[in-house]
Structures are given as structure tokens and as C-alpha cells.
């Protein structure tokens, strides 16, 4: 397989151009671009009311578009970067990412949004959420650790599984301290999926599932989670009971989506969306915008677009020609699928409220960039497999 890779990883990080465009997974790319455009439209609608009194009402949308452009550029890079280089530099990527994760705790650098100290202040009013990059880093690191030095048909050794688990647990702990519960749950799902697909022994899988369930129960019982966290996690069960903000948000989100009916009120016309009843509807609650303004039809279209991305990602994982590629693709599938489910499910009132964005749709630069890197990595795995097979 290495015969195709002619360039020296030390000097050339990008693969040769030949067949790049032909071999790309075009369905994945088109679905990702379509979702991004769809998302930008929703961000525009959601930010219009909030920005109406601003000197430039379009400024929020403009910033979003800039984030998209940066994200696509990073994705392009991720799709072309040399496979071996990627594996070689994964520990460094992981290290840098872990370092970035600690930065929000540095006074003067970090910012707390909605109770989570998960952002780094950048000049010009921009913020960076390092936990988004941590998702990519964790997937790469686990894939490297679980695919190294072994026969492709054999199961990973316990030591490798333990190290991979450790690679996931370290950032999870930091993010827990940041109070970013949503990201913790997603990283947990990613770790479990990658270990499972790596072919690790079944007791590992069962043990991890059991451990996660026990961990959550114990955390709630022992009061390790702060009161507001529990409240956020449980308010979706009985939203009518009180008017605390979490329950209020869940309630307003459901009114918005439910009011959409078959085809919705029309873009920019949703009373809940434009009346600012639903908080953070450009990010956490963005599904309420499509639900209200474009109705069931628009909602299904969005879920279908996301479904296509996941379908292609699963196919890439299946067709990967090595364990590293498969695990990278698997990790991305788990990440995107659980994040989509959590985000949309929260708006629909079937998942607890945690502040995470909808991949490729929500405003939020770091998430947009990280997701496009993920799309690029999927393409990279695919290109590698196509070339190996040809």
C-alpha cells in the first residue's frame, strides 16, 4: 500500500494530486456543502432579530461565512495530508490539543459561556472552543494506539485498549472540569465506539457500557454534578413544572418546532424565532428555526442531509483498507451521530439540555472548523482505500 505514496513525509505532507478529484466521495462532499449552506440560512434567520438593532445586522452572518470558509480550507488540507504523516504527528496533535484544553482556565484567557468554562478569548471578540478540536485529536490518538503493531485480523491487546482509553479519559476529565457535560457525553460515545470497532474483547465493550451507566448514576447521587447541571439534565422531563430558564428553554423550543406544522411559517417568518423567544437559537437550539420556519418538510430534509453524511461516513469506515482509517471513520461517525442526536433531541425535548452545536449547521466557528476537518479526514481515508484497491 505504501507504494502509492511516493512523497517523503518529512518534506511533503500532501499526497500527489493524481486522481484526487475523481476519487473523492462526491456524495459526502455535496451533502456536507448542502448542510453548511442550509445551516447558514438558519443562522441568518436566527440572528436577524438579535442583530436588528446592530449597526450591521448582517455582521453575525458574515462572521459565520468566514468561519465556513476557514473550515472548508482546513477540511481540504485534512483530506490531502499524507496518511503516514498524519499517523506520525498524531501524538503532537494530541498534545497540542490537550494543552489548548487547559487554556480556558488561565485567568484573562478563558471565558465562561452558559456555565461552561470552555472558551478561549481571541482578539477581535472571537472565541475558540478547544474541546471541539479535542474530539478530532482523541479520535486520531485512539485510532493510532489501537491500530499499531499488530496483525489486522487480531484483536487489540489489553494494554493498547487501556492506553486508548487513557487517551480518551484525559481530555474527558479536563472537559468535565470545564462543566461542558455535552462534550463529555459525546467523547464517551466516541471512545466506546472506537474501542468496540477496533475488535477489542467483548468484555471491554460490556464493561465500558456498564461503567458509563454506573458513573452517571453515581455522579448524580453523590452530587458531583452541580445543581444546575442536574436541572439542565432533568428539566426536559417536566418542562411545565417551573419557569427556571432550562425548563423555559425546552418549553419554548418545543412550541417553536411544534408550531411549524407540515411546511412551517416560512423563512424569517417564525414568530418564536423572530420574537427571540427561543434562546441561543443560532447554535444550541438551531433546530427550532428549521422546525418552526420550514416545518416538518424542512426538518426531514435537514435530518436527511445529515443522514447522508453519516451513511457515507459509515461506508468509508466499512471500506477502509486499514484499521487506522476504519477507526478514524468510526470515531467520526460516532461523534457526528451522537452530537446530532443530542442537539436535535434536546430541541425536541427527548434529550437533556446541554450546550452543544449541531455539526455543520450551528453558528460557532470552532465547531464548524472541527467538523469540516472531520469531513476532510473521511475523504482522506476514502482516498487511501481507493488507491490501495486500484
Amino acid at each position: 500500500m505504501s507504494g502509492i505514496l511516493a512523497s517523503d513525509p518529512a518534506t511533503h505532507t500532501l499526497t500527489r494530486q493524481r486522481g484526487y478529484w475523481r476519487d473523492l466521495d462526491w456524495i459526502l462532499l455535496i451533502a456536507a456543502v448542502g448542510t453548511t449552506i442550509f445551516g447558514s440560512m438558519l443562522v441568518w434567520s436566527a440572528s436577524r432579530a438579535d442583530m436588528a438593532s446592530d449597526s450591521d445586522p448582517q455582521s453575525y452572518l458574515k462572521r459565520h461565512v468566514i468561519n465556513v470558509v476557514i473550515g472548508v480550507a482546513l477540511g481540504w488540507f485534512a483530506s490531502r495530508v499524507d496518511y503516514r504523516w498524519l499517523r506520525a504527528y498524531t501524538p503532537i496533535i494530541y498534545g497540542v490539543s490537550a494543552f489548548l484544553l487547559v487554556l480556558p482556565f488561565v485567568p484573562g484567557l478563558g471565558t465562561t459561556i452558559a456555565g461552561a468554562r470552555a472558551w478561549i478569548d481571541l482578539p477581535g471578540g472571537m472565541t475558540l472552543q478547544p474541546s471541539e478540536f479535542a474530539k478530532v485529536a482523541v479520535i486520531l490518538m485512539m485510532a493510532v494506539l489501537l491500530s499499531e503493531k499488530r496483525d489486522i485480523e487480531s484483536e487489540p491487546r489489553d494494554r493498547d485498549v487501556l492506553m486508548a482509553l487513557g487517551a480518551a479519559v484525559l481530555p474527558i476529565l479536563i472537559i468535565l472540569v470545564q462543566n461542558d457535560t455535552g462534550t463529555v457525553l459525546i467523547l464517551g460515545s466516541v471512545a466506546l465506539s472506537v474501542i468496540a470497532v477496533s475488535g477489542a474483547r467483548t468484555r471491554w465493550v460490556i464493561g465500558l457500557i456498564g461503567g458509563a451507566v454506573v458513573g452517571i448514576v453515581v455522579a448524580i447521587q453523590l452530587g458531583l454534578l452541580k445543581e444546575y447541571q442536574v436541572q439542565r439534565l432533568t428539566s426536559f422531563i417536566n418542562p411545565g413544572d417551573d419557569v427556571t430558564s432550562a425548563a423555559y428553554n425546552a418549553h419554548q423550543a418545543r412550541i417553536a418546532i411544534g408550531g411549524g406544522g407540515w411546511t412551517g411559517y416560512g423563512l424569517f417568518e417564525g414568530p418564536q424565532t423572530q420574537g427571540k423567544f427561543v434562546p441561543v437559537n443560532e447554535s444550541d437550539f438551531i433546530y427550532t428555526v428549521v422546525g418552526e420556519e420550514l416545518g416538518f418538510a424542512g426538518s426531514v430534509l435537514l435530518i436527511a442531509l445529515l443522514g447522508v453524511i453519516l451513511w457515507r461516513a459509515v461506508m468509508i469506515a466499512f471500506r477502509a483498507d486499514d484499521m487506522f482509517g476504519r477507526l478514524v471513520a468510526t470515531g467520526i461517525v460516532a461523534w457526528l451521530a451522537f452530537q446530532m442526536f443530542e442537539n436535535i433531541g434536546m430541541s425536541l425535548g427527548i434529550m437533556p439540555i446541554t450546550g452543544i452545536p449541531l455539526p455543520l449547521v450551528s453558528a460557532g466557528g470552532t465547531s464548524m472548523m472541527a467538523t469540516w476537518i472531520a469531513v476532510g479526514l473521511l475523504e482522506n481515508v476514502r482516498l487511501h482505500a481507493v488507491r490501495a484497491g486500484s
Partner: protein
Amino acid sequence: MSERSNLRLLVLAVLVVSLLGTLVARSFYLQIMEGAEYRAAAEGNTVREVAEPAVRGLVLDQAGRPLISNRTTVVVTVDRQTLAQEPNDGAAVVTRLSRILEVPRDSIADRLKTCGTEGAKPPPVCWNGSTYQPVPVASDVDTQIALSIMERRREFPGVTAKLEAVRQYPAPFNVNAAHILGYLGPVTEEQLDAQGDTTDPDRLRRTDVVGRTGLEKQYDDQLRGRPGITTLAVDTAGNVTGTLEEKDPQAGDYLVTSIDAKLQSVVEQQLINAVRRAQGQGYAGKSGAAVVIEVDTGRVLAMASYPTYDPSIWIGGVTRKQYQQLIDDESLSSNAYQGQFAPGSTFKAISTAAAGLDNFNLYGIYPCPSQVTVGGTVFRNYESKPYGPISLTRALEVSCNTVFYDIAKRMWQKAGGPDADVTAPDPIAEAATSFGLGVPTGIDLPGEAAGRVASREFKYDNWEARKDTWCRNAEEGYPETRKTDPKLADYYTALDRENCTDGYQWRAGDALNAAIGQGDTTVTPLQMAMVYAAIANGGTLYQPQVAKGFVSADGSSVQEFDPVVVRKVEVPKSAIRFLRRSLPGVTTDGSGETPFLGFPLDRIPVASKTGSAQVTGDKASTSWFASYAPANDPKYAIVMMVTEGGTGSKTSGPSVRKIYEAIFGVRGTQVNPRDSVLVGGEPQQALPVVRPDGTPVAPQGRRSGVADIRAAGSSQ
């Protein structure tokens, strides 16, 4: 790849599909199955805004001393939303509250009713604000009571004691300045109607207090600041379901005036002294005004009106009785910019400029007999004193009427006499208009009077407006009066017949009266001060300004107002030069001499013009003293007048002298700028500085000397 891996990947794929399926199914359930219900909920979803007024900006004098500040008072409010959830609509809470506040239970209950609802008392007893706004039920509550209410939250659900700002007048150096500062009052229906149906968050609300007069009204918008807005989501039943947005109030900007508190205090006292002087001479001395202008900027350094009132009377609302008292005293309006009076001989400066305009030789010799006869009417000099042939300078010094009669008569004849067209040239009216008479000066205070310039045009317009009445009366012959006094009826009828037929005519007598500031010409003392300021600065008519600028409440931003030029006065430069040469002589050798005896005129020459304007009836003349100084390098123009006050020289003159002494630091014949009432001896150039905590301090710069702001009173 191992079977196990493939299988598990397949499981993951199935899981992903089921997750997506769940989302679609749940969307279907919410949007299609229960869609109608949610749509109804969305439509019942409305927002309510609760506005919290911002702290009003302070009004500072030129050295940063607060003329109006805020004081905090403890206000007890009741949230009716919370109260409604108590048994019996919180009747027990209201009873407890009335007991602890020691006010009748009914007065609280009445206060809690929304205006216009059943059983509600008329405003201001009923609550005029939003349903979602806590209702203030008591103010100036004792701190101990407030604390015990806050400690016993359980007994007082929905009751809050909080600090609120109300206006206070620190009155540094006992200044009054009521007519400049103005007062606050509840927003009026007219104002609410005028702004229409707006959703502007900064709009006026029914519960707002706004400036009603003076600077408080003129700069209300900027002083008021921006209210804090809490946007609540409310369902169809009116229950608050959440908070959508919270915006903190933004305190109003500090208004910096050019008024100097210490000087204002001196001017107010000197005006009172002038009135007392008039009364001491046996005159009524009913009202008066005094204005001090910085001649190169048009800024008002001090402006006083007599009688005045205590501005703090308006805080917390004025009673009917107090209001009636204010009306009876005629103290509500300012005589300085709202009162209109015949200017008398102070007008001669304008007539002199008009003579220059009409190419009279300003350096010629004019006869000053004791009287002149025009059209069968005798026009006399003051006290019928003849001076023989004199120069125009001398005519100004001794205020010779007959010289100006002669000039006016020649002008009148040149224009065509009684038969002249309305548009015929009238140099005196032209000069007066060019000096800004007949129209408001444009001072930044509301309700300014325009005054009036007597002219052919005025007379014609007046006739047009009144001729129908005159002619009808002439026809009818005053039948009512005739029953009791046929002679008087005859007199009235003859007068009206004359007015009816040729009341539009600008007669010689009208022209003569106009030349000496009598007849139909009226001015405000402020207008006269601007005229003398324009003469002093070489012919630039400024728009008087009280405001120098704004400083934000945290001192971070500063906005300065530049002087505004109305126009270059359209009279020959030579005439202005002539006036500037002649008017100092009034103080050294003329009618203004007596009050300035012993004043160091060699070091601070003072240009002046006196006036003793006749008024109809048997009332004493209006005492005027118009001036500027130093005559060789003019900085200040001062005008003072007292109605029914006697002569300008005896009544107003001595007070004007005292004001100059205060400004220049004159003690006996010594001049020491350090004794000036103005900090540093001159008006401040820079605006005062406002510290981030909101404390104003004296301007920093060349001109600020030893500041004594602290002595002027606390800031907040």
C-alpha cells in the same frame, strides 16, 4: 478486517439509523400530531417589557459644581403578580405592609389598582404603569423599616424596598437659578400621543418623569439616559414564563453649563438689592432680571429673575395650593428670557447704529433742545433738560432724547412720511432686527419670548388684525359706556374711528418713540444683553447658550458645544466702532457715572447705557442698565433691569457695578483677579472632569486655579 470489527461497525450503523429515525418520528409527533396545540401556544406567546428608568444626569456649573444632583430615597414597591398568587389577592400582605409603613391600608390598596379599572381612583393615586412593573407604594421610607421588610420576605411576598434616585438641588453658594434649571414632572398625554405607536426601547413610558421647563426640558433626552429593559415572555393567561432579555439602564449624561454658581449667586443677590433699592425710593419694584454674557462666545455666565421660587418645591409633586401661590407670585416665568419690556434709552445704541446705516455723520453736531414738536405733539427730553448743540457721543452720554428724535424724524421724512409704503426703508427697525430683536435669541431654554420691533410693517399688520373691531366699535359708539359716561364714549369712538381709517399709518410720533426704545418696541433683558455683547465683540451676534457640553456619567465620553454665531450684525463697522468709543463715556461722564464713582475705571473701563423706560399708566419707569467691560478688551456684557424701578442709574447701576467687582476681584480701588468669584479669574475653557464613579471635579487646565468646589456642597 476482523468479523468482530465488521459486526460492531454494523451495530453502530444500525444505531445511527435508529437515532435518526427517532428524530424524524419525534419531529412528526410534535409538528404534525400535536402541531395545532403548539401553534396555539406560539400565538399566545407574547412579550412584555418592564422598564427601569436610568439615573438622570447631573447638571453642573462651569467649575463642576452640581446645580442639580440626585439623592437616593428608599422606595417600597409591590409586585402585583406575586401578590395575586397569595390567598385573597394578598389582602393580608397589604394589611401587614400598611401597619409597618404606618400608612392607611386603603391608600396602599388604591395605589395598587390599575388606572381605568373598576374602583380605581383617578391618577396620580391609581397605578398608571404596566401590569408587570412593581408598583411603588411608599417613598422616603425609613431605612430600618425597609430592612425589616427585606428581612421578613416570607411575610411580604412581592414587596421590595429599594433605593431610587430623586432630584435634589444642592444650591452651592445658595444659588437659586430656578428658571434656568427647570423642574421635572410626569410625562404628559400630549408627549405620549406625539411619539405615536413606537416600539423604540428608549421611548417615553407612562411612568416616566420628564423635564417640564428649563434645562431639564431642553436637554431631557440626554439627561434621562436609557432605561433598562427586561423583556419577559408571557403566555395567554398573563403568566410570566421566562426572561428573554435583560438590559441594564444607562445613566443620563452630565450637563455642563456655562453658569458659574458663585457668580450666579452674586447676580441673584444684586438683583434683589436693586429691587430693594427701587422699593427704598418708593417705587413698586415689582420684578427684575439680570444677565451676564461672555461676549466672545455668547455663553450665559449668570442669569437671574425676580421674583423666583424654590425649585425643590417640585420634588415629589407640587400641591394645588403651592401651585396657586406660584401663579399669584408671577414667579414661574423668567423675566430674563420670557419677560418683554420697553427697552427705553438702552435702545439708543441701536438707533445710533441705524444712523450710521442711514449715512448720518456719527461725528457731527446735533441740537439737543429740551423738546421738539412733531405734528402738534410735544416730545420732551428727560426732565426737559436742554444741552444745546452736542456731539452724538455726548448725546449718548447724557441720553438726549431730542437728538434721536431729530434723527428719527429725518429718517421718517426721507422714507416718505406718513404715506410711505410698508416696504419703505426703516433703518431703526432694520438695525434692531439685525441686532436680533423681534425674534427669540435661540437660547437653549424652552419658552423664550420674541419681543417686538415697532415698524411700519408691524403697525400695518396690527391694523389688519384689529381694524374690524375698531371700525365696528366706531360704528356702534360704545353704547354700554355711553350710558354711564358719554364723554368717555365719545373719546373712545373718536379714537377707534381714527384707528379704523388710518391706523396702519406709521406716523412721525411712532418713528420718534421707536428711536428711544418706547412705543411698541419690546425686548427681553437677554436680547438686550446679546445686543451689547455684539457691540462689545465688534458686531458678532451670538446665540446665547447655557449648556457647554455633556460628559457621560462615568466620564468616559465628552461632547462640547461650540459657540453659535447668529450673524454679523448688518450695520456699518464704523458705527460699531463709534459705539465702542462712545459708550465708555457714559460711565465716566454721563448717566452711568454715579453708580461707578470710585470704581477703578482706569484699569477696568466700563461701557454702559442707562435706560428709564416709560410704561403706560402712572407706573414708575423701568430701570435699565446695559453694559460691557473691560471696554478696551470686552469680556462680559451685563444687563440688569427692574420694572417700576425708577432710573437705570440709581436702581440697577449700583448692582451692575457690584457684579463687575465680583467678577474682576475689585476691592475698593484695588483689582486682584485672585479675589474674583470666578475660579482662576475667568470662565473655564475646558469642561469639568467626571470621575469613573460619577464624581465631578473642576476642569483641569490653564485657567483652573484654586478650586473650592468642595465647599459648594456634596456631589451626589
